[in-house]
């Protein structure tokens, strides 16, 4: 069976959920071989094996943390060469994070392959893997494939339900020699993002967002309380971010992050096309807004026309009491 290279996104050995989703999708087209780089790479092996990795290629070097992107491209290329030399390679899959897409793009050029980004589904096809993508603020769905080289495909978070499928997960050291360009962009300082205790926005199964209607940074606690009652991530519309009420890292929309959770709850968000571009693929959409004419109501599975400061706290209390 053909192998599928899966690039592992992890933080000090803790594998992030989109990688486990990738392993699930990879098994549809071949045998997953995981590539884990940097500090804690070997610690990823157990969970990767549990989710179907037949092999885990690992390598650690200071370059991964000290320089931007290129060292990881060098390593993924080394893995590509090692695995494709040993047989057939069906695809290279990379999580669709900002960095993941950059790594995948540079690899694609180096190995002379086409690239598909932001796939939301993946199936085996007669002429190689077929990727589903969303276009034009999710108003269209396309099916595409790579027609040259080994398909390089980046996949968005929440594109598949994680399924365990134990495999050998044999750890092998990957031999990497860094290119001259690897040290071109220095990381001179790194400040970890302050942990909020909430799930990462792009990975969360539930996202609760606030917009212009929240009317002030101090009022965002209403949104956060609802999010915490559901174990959800907090999002914000551009209007709320531009007003300085919530950090840019939480912005959902065309110029912010695109999310595709099981449940999206929009409060005080009118639903301009720019916001819809970032959330329209959410499975279930709920909105609370005073304005019955707000375009967000065209998208919803359930909408409440009302004051969010009445509705949201009542909803939060009700959820808490039901969860007991």
């Amino acid at each position: 069976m053909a192998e599928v290279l899966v690039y592992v996104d992890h933080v000090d050995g803790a594998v992030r959920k989109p990688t486990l989703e990738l392993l699930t999708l990879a098994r549809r087209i071949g045998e997953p071989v995981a590539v884990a780089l940097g500090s804690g790479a070997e610690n990823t092996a157990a969970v990767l094996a549990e989710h179907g990795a037949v092999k885990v290629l690992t390598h650690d070097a200071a370059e991964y943390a000290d320089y931007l992107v290129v060292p990881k491209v060098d390593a993924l290329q080394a893995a590509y060469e090692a695995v494709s030399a040993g047989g057939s390679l069906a695809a290279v899959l990379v999580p669709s994070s900002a960095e993941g897409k950059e790594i995948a793009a540079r690899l694609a050029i180096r190995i002379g392959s086409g690239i598909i980004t932001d796939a939301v589904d993946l199936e085996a096809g007669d002429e190689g893997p077929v990727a589903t993508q969303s276009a034009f603020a999710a108003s269209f769905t396309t099916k595409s494939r790579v027609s040259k080289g080994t398909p390089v495909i980046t996949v968005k978070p929440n594109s598949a339900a994680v399924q365990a499928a134990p495999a050998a997960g044999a750890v092998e050291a990957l031999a990497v020699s860094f290119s001259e360009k690897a040290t071109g962009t220095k990381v001179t300082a790194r400040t970890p993002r302050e942990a909020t205790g909430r799930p990462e926005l792009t990975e969360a199964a539930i996202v609760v967002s606030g917009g212009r209607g929240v009317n002030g940074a101090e009022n965002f606690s209403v949104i956060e309380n609802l999010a915490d009652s559901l174990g959800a991530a907090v999002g914000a519309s551009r209007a709320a971010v531009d007003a300085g009420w919530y950090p840019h890292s939480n912005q959902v929309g065309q110029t912010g992050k695109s999310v595709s959770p099981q449940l999206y709850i929009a409060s005080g968000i009118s639903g301009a096309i720019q916001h819809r571009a970032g959330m329209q693929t959410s499975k279930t959409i709920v909105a609370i807004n005073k304005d019955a004419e707000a375009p967000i109501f065209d998208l919803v599975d359930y909408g409440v026309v009302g004051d969010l400061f009445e509705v949201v706290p009542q909803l939060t209390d009700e959820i808490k009491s039901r969860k007991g």
Partner: protein
Amino acid sequence: MSLRIVVTVKYVPDATGDRHFAEDLTVDRDDVDGLLSELDEYAVEQALQIADEADDAEITVLTVGPEDAKDALRKALSMGAHKAIHVEDDDLHGTDAIGTSLVLAKAIEKAGYDLVISGMASTDGTAGIVPALLAERLGVPQVTLLSEVSVEGGPTGTVKGRRDGDTASEQLEASLPAVVSVTDQSGEARYPSFKGIMAAKKKPVESWDLEDLEIEADEVGLEGSWTKVDTAAERPARTAGTIVKDEGEGGKQLAEFLAGQKFI
């Protein structure tokens, strides 16, 4: 020596229009008005600010696209860029990101550059991979997704910036020449002044085709694309949802709905 800045920009269909695909599954550009991709306005803005700080700098805006794409160049020129290059060729129709990066890289090399500045992504394709592809092709450092950027020391100096990622915020530094991309957090883009709009009409716009860039037709276009779109289907309209008016029980009703969907 003058700091040569090339800003890559894209002419995109207006997101508020009715965007769709043409019969050959490329973006239909005829039925929707186009404009300069909003995210590229931030790239032009940062180029202008870097040029202001430098002793001597020249900003060239570069686009690859059909005839109408000149509008995107005019907008950037009216903001203050000095000159423009338009790569236009019938054989470019349907070029994918890999092909576009080839055309841009050849044009950037031909124009001469110390710094390339791009937006973080286009507002139509939204992939955000062209800056990384350009750095790979040009063989220079990529300093991407910056919410803050500065250049010191002129054409042989360094570029510094802040990259705000999911898990950390990083300070980056590289020697020129380099490829930079900036986010919408890098600073509000200026509106063109009346004077700027009038001045833009007199600024030079060069037109290059594939031959000028020594690119063969089969390296680009729909045929030369390394990816193939097999189908594009309009998403079925969402079935109308339930909408209730809050008369004191709105939150409880919503909780009932969420419980029914097994979210609580």
